[in-house]
């Protein structure tokens, strides 16, 4: 399976496939991503590849973020070098805005290498992870698709309310997990098995069928799917 990639949702549009059918697609600007770090079983206890997407101006990056991508001349580093601790390799790129790890085997990847959309060129479907649009405090109709109550027949002031939230004296309490109004959205959401419509390596674009969570411009994680 391919490593995965980080990107940004550009927006939705429509294209025509080979049969002339109009297909709704989401355009994702995917990569290029820098390999920032490779975690190994021996050193970190698990295997993973850390990718970074989108350069961040150095003046905005914290010292630790700068130290993550390039060697800094620091007292601590000198002390560690003197003590014989070998620092891991650095990618020598700009600090990155969006950094995530992928729990896959490195498969010949090197720190500092760039990963591009061509890894999905042969892939039929992917999983896309995003942060859904925040909707704030919402009622049960919007949040849980409750039906609400009638417009008339004696219903007063509670047209968008939930009905009963439990039983009477026994059990005498509200069940745990009862769906109620509350904060909705702004949470991580994975859409699995999205068909890949097109891969444009030249412009670093990935087109997938249908919708992807989050606003336009929101960061997304794209990885190969295990649901086929």
């Amino acid at each position: 399976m391919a490593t995965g990639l980080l990107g940004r949702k550009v927006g939705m549009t429509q294209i025509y496939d080979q049969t002339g059918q109009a297909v709704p697609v989401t355009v994702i600007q995917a990569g290029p991503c820098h390999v920032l770090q490779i975690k190994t079983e021996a050193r970190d206890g698990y295997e993973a590849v850390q990718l970074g997407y989108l350069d961040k101006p150095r003046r905005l990056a914290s010292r630790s973020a700068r130290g993550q991508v390039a060697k800094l001349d620091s007292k601590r580093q000198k002390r560690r070098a003197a003590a014989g601790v070998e620092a891991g390799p650095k990618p020598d790129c700009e600090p990155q805005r969006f950094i995530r790890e992928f729990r896959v085997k490195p498969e010949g990847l090197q720190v500092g290498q760039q990963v591009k959309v061509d890894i999905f060129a042969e892939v039929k479907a992917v999983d896309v992870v995003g942060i859904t649009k925040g909707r704030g405090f919402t009622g049960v109709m919007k949040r849980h698709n409750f039906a609400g109550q009638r417009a008339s027949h004696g219903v007063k002031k509670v047209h968008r309310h939930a009905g009963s939230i439990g039983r009477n004296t026994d059990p005498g309490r509200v069940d745990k997990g009862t769906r109620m109004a509350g904060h909705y959205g702004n949470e991580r959401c994975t859409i699995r098995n999205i068909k890949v419509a097109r891969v444009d390596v030249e412009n670093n674009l990935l087109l997938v069928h249908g919708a992807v969570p989050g606003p336009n411009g929101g960061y997304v994680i794209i990885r190969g799917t295990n649901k086929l």
Partner: protein
Amino acid sequence: MSRQILDLVEKSSIKPEQPIFSIGDTVDVHCRILEGDKERIQIFTGVVIARSGSGSREMFVVRRIVQGEGVERKFPVNSPRIAKIDVKRSGVVKRAKLYYLRDRSGKGVRLRERRVETK
């Protein structure tokens, strides 16, 4: 920035030669129809009463009268299934959407022809 990227993506779905027709034109729309492996062209003739959308999503509505009953079909301008759009006749119209034709019948449906001067 994002608009430019979307335009770039849509460009691949837009026909290189945009068909030229306008509201009020009587057109022949040649649609490709697949029947099994065979491809056939069907022609839908009528008056263009509306255009909507932009880029690869642009659509147009053609209205015609079939056996006294008004029939409207909405087509995507850039669909590969539309082989050709022939303009048969141009009508003089004063608005972008000719929905008022729906309320008319008989002679009222006719549009005055726009004569294009040719040198």
